[in-house]
């Protein structure tokens, strides 16, 4: 038998994970959350909330960061990463919603917050922002679709409103990225004090922005390997700088927060939370900050790649710690996700990658390569203008 595609390790893995995830969803739908998850009355939020929703939304923060940089701050040098970032964010959010539908007890009532919203609820606010922002992302990405089919008019229409659209997207993102942290503000007696802080919204927002940049760096490397689209070093360099800035700010705020709350002693107590916290801070803050402060690392593609892996892992650690580790002590139970929970989460990650690859194949996500003659013209042009060659030396078209 001949398969229509090559069997590679990753494809086999993707197949297995997807099948397992699909089976888990089947069990979840037919027998309820109890049969599929290790959740309990003592531990009502587990991996699906912690990873699929809280972490997923954070990892998709590259979308608004880059869109804001390109359209609001006019940093056109980021244009080559704009489309991939928006695509990732869009797919990320769509799958966050899928994850949410699997997790909530009444997925068919997903529209209820729209009709009977409770303005005092952070969850309501997050639901609204995610809904609207996903639509904004769809519109932002629609230009790529229009371009593919050569529909000039709709593309022009979206182009006309793109600036206000991006601004709305940035506001919505600021709101819900921080609000994911605010979800926990109401649990001062339940969330372990290493993580509970009145500054949770600020921590969540800042770490989402720096991790958004890390994700763009990380992705651009993977897409280089997978699709051969090389990204300019200078773009990554800028992203690395933003990342460093965000992480430094995060660390300073953390120090300030620990001092005001007087919880430094907790960092030296002999308990599970302490160790995990140290690990989180080392991987997600201290190591990448030290690495990025070294100029050689910051300016090398490899170095940035390594830093982005640290940043993303640290981010994962942090969100898992807030949602799971930090809630363990007060719950009195030891929650460990079931294999079905894990497989659904992995399948969701697999889905994002799969859909991304599919979209790259059919849509001009990475722009259209310039022809040699055009490149020469552009280069000459930049020399004439005495411009910083950063601006036009890209191999891809910069059109907004």
């Amino acid at each position, binding site marked *: 038998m001949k398969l229509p595609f090559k069997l590679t390790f990753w494809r086999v893995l993707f197949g297995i994970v997807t099948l397992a995830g699909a089976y888990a969803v089947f069990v979840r739908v037919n027998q309820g959350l109890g049969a599929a998850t290790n959740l309990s009355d003592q531990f009502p939020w587990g991996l699906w909330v912690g990873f699929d929703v809280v972490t997923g939304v954070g990892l998709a923060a590259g979308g608004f960061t880059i869109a804001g940089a390109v359209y609001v701050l006019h940093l056109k040098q980021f244009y080559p990463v704009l489309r991939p970032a928006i695509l990732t964010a869009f797919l990320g959010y769509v799958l966050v919603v899928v994850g949410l539908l699997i997790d909530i007890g009444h997925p068919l009532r997903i529209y209820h917050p729209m009709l009977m919203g*409770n303005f005092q609820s952070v969850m309501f606010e997050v639901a609204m922002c995610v809904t609207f922002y996903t639509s904004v992302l769809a519109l932002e990405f629609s230009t790529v679709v229009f371009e593919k089919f050569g529909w000039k008019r709709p593309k022009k229409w979206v182009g006309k409103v793109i600036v206000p659209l991006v601004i709305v997207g940035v506001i919505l993102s600021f709101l819900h990225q921080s609000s994911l942290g605010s979800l926990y503000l109401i649990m001062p007696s339940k969330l372990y004090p290493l993580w509970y802080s009145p500054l949770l919204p600020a921590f969540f927002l800042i770490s989402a922005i720096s991790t958004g940049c890390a994700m763009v760096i990380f992705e651009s490397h993977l897409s280089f390997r997978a699709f051969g689209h090389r990204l300019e070093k200078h773009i990554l360099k800028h992203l690395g700088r933003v990342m460093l800035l965000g992480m430094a700010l995060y660390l300073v705020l953390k120090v300030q927060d620990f001092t005001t709350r007087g919880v430094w002693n907790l960092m030296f107590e002999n308990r599970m939370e302490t160790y995990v916290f140290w690990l989180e801070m080392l991987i997600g803050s201290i190591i990448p900050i030290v690495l990025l402060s070294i100029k050689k690392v910051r300016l090398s593609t490899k170095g940035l790649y390594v830093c982005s892996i640290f940043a993303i892992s640290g981010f994962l650690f942090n969100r898992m710690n807030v949602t799971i580790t930090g809630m363990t002590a007060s719950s009195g139970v030891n929650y460990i996700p079931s294999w079905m929970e894990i497989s659904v989460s992995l399948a969701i990650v697999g889905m994002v990658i799969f859909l991304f690859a599919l979209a790259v194949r059919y849509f001009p996500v990475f722009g259209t390569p310039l022809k040699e003659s055009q490149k020469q013209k552009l280069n000459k042009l930049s020399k004439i203008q005495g411009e910083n060659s950063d601006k036009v030396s890209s191999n891809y078209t910069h059109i907004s």
Partner: protein
Amino acid sequence: MDNRKALLIDVNLCVGCKACVEACREENNQPEDGDMSVLSSTAYTAVIEKEEVYTRKMCMHCEVPTCVSVCPVGALEKTESGAVIYHYEKCIGCRYCMQACPYSVPTYEWASTKPKVQKCTMCYPRQKVGDIPACAEACPAEATIFGDRDELLAIARQRRIDEPETYINHIFGEHEAGGTSVLFTSSIPFDELGLPMNLPMEPLPNLTWDVLSKIPRFSVFFGTFLYGVWWVIDRRMEIADKGNNQLTEAVWNQRNQKDEV
């Protein structure tokens, strides 16, 4: 506030007979099997033994309930009588109420595909027709009594005055997290009874409201700010980059034309 009802549970009087648990089951048509010392989706109250005294566990019917404030669809409601009740038709099953309740009270029908959140209703249906909650009615030792919150607080204070050796100087629920409609008095500290002692005295929903209430103003300011930034940079670039842009565009147009051919 005035005619809000409450329950006063006096741990010193409780004999551990579990009549309240049985009455509760009967009232809510719940099955008879199962542990009488844990809350579950089929048990709204429980009697637990701690340090040779008995205490009850149930929804505290907070004065400013966390569960009501976190529910995205308003499926939980603080009624005028003080009881906190649940509207199944609205609930989306997100379990934020369970996660956020400082006493970890609400439970969930994990085995159901149409799960309900379950918790004590302070017998709201009975209260509406003028009856008192089933547990208070069933208690043979008057360890659980029902009445106006103010009066019950006065009774609790009086007990401490009459017998200062048997009552600690603390009524749990008077101020905790803004106060509750289920009050406890005891001879031993409340943390030994399993009640959380690390709660702030202000209502917990204030903690989120402080942030949430700033959103409209923040959005307007931030939006204006971003638009301003865009405009300023745009103007500057327009002036500085005019020639450059035109040339770039020319290249682009040329390329497009070629594509179309």
